[in-house]
């Protein structure tokens, strides 16, 4: 992992829209891309706190992040133009374990973000299943050529074969449904984070039956560690 000494400054090399989302490309410079599912804290211009994003793409010399403009910080990131600079810290947290026998990648909405880099690291061997709430949102599926895509009201969980080693990321109800179907699934969870390195204690999730910091324990967690939470929701 990069030393936590200081976030480094990175130039924007590209910004492309994919439906409602923006794929933001940054100069990689000194940063390692890390393990798929790990995240980076990106400075949100004009805001006090950075925002956490899992790495979406890692082309040579670049880091790519998929951003959904849901608030002022994410909107500021979508408004960046090539040549602008932001501070970046990472990679942080725990990513996916890649040593699985029959990987199946499952993504919902903006939760598809870590899957392109994950698919690349799995060397294209894994089938991919994506769900979106509209055809416009589904334009982001272009990041994962060959993926099976469903649009609401069809749910990805209706198509999951439980014989696979599921590696999922998406909204909480989707992750809970995946966890019930596939108790061995690896799930990339989400929580508001101020720091990303264990300092703020803000991102706690009920893990192993107690409130723990997602930035240190996850964001990728074995479904079994979320049992209490999944059972409570069921």
């Amino acid at each position, binding site marked *: 992992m990069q030393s936590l000494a200081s976030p480094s400054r990175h130039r924007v090399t590209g910004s492309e829209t994919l439906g409602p989302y923006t794929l933001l490309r940054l100069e990689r410079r000194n940063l390692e891309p890390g393990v798929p599912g790990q995240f980076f804290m990106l400075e949100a211009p004009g805001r006090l706190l950075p925002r956490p994003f899992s790495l979406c793409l890692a082309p040579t010399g670049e880091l790519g992040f998929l951003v959904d403009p849901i608030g002022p*910080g994410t909107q500021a990131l979508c408004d960046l133009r090539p040549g602008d600079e932001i501070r970046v810290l990472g990679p942080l947290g725990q990513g996916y374990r890649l040593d699985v026998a029959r990987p199946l990648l499952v993504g919902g909405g903006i939760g598809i973000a870590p899957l392109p880099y994950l698919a690349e690291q799995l060397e294209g061997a894994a089938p991919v299943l994506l769900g979106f709430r509209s055809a416009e949102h589904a334009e982001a599926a272009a990041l994962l050529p060959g993926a099976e895509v469903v649009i609401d009201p069809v749910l990805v969980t209706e198509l999951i074969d439980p014989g696979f080693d599921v590696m999922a990321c998406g909204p909480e109800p989707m992750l809970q449904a995946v966890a019930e179907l596939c108790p061995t699934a690896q799930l990339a969870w989400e929580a508001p984070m101020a720091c990303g390195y264990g300092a703020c204690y803000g991102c706690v*999730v009920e893990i192993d039956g107690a409130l723990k910091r997602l930035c240190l324990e996850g964001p990728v967690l074995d479904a079994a560690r979320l049992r209490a939470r999944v059972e409570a929701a069921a």
Partner: protein
Amino acid sequence: MRILNASGCLDALAAPEVARELDAFVTKTVTPLPREGSAPPRIAETAHGMLNAIGLANPGRDRFLAEHLPRLSQLGVPIWVSVGGFTAADYAETCAVLRSDEAAAVELNLSCPNVDEAADSAAEIVAACRRATELPLYAKLSAAHPEIAEVARAVAAAGADGLSLINTLRAVALDSRLRPLLARGSGGLSGPVLKPVALHAVSICHEATGLPIVGMGGIQSGGDALEFAACGASDVALGTVLFADPGAPARVRAELAAACEDAGVVSPDDARASAKSPETQPKVPA
């Protein structure tokens, strides 16, 4: 001028390289019994600040002493233990079991906005702790108290060696559907929005007591730290800025030297001394 962290804004065991850049590390507040803390969501960003309602999550006194403090004392940085509780006896019992080879000082958290107020007064708590330990005692006060300088005088008379000013201020933020953003409802407001409030509190408490003061509240830069010195702070602590920039301790230290040069003072101590002269003291109505 030493640079510390504000209590609860850094986990030195999770990020030891950040803690080692500080002149002293202040622990998260330790209470007699373990506390899981508040339900999420616990944090939210506001204009020029952030809200938190962590709820004093901590492992409790026994586990802190057995598992955390021995590891913290290996970091090579002086450790200040932040002590919390609900009665004067709670605070004093924790102070009594802290050893001077592991803890360099005690900060009494008399002002967490995310727990109910302690039943005993700040001065009663300080007096009880003074009887329990010879370690330096810093009383962390809230600027929400309408007479903070009077509280400062009272804790000074009760035996406090210094003051930590200020804690977060209780606040609330709503989402677009007009519901509180935090699960707890209200939380503590921190960040740059606090700086003017903190500078005022430091100034009037410095004038009231002359005690050493760790100034904190919205410090983002070395220039901010120098303003705290000019208002009477002897040391400063970094809080919210650490979240966006774990390199802030070294950066603020470097900027502080440059800010002194720009302000025409030799050092932060020089700025504090000059603030005492009538010509240069910030005009702060008491």
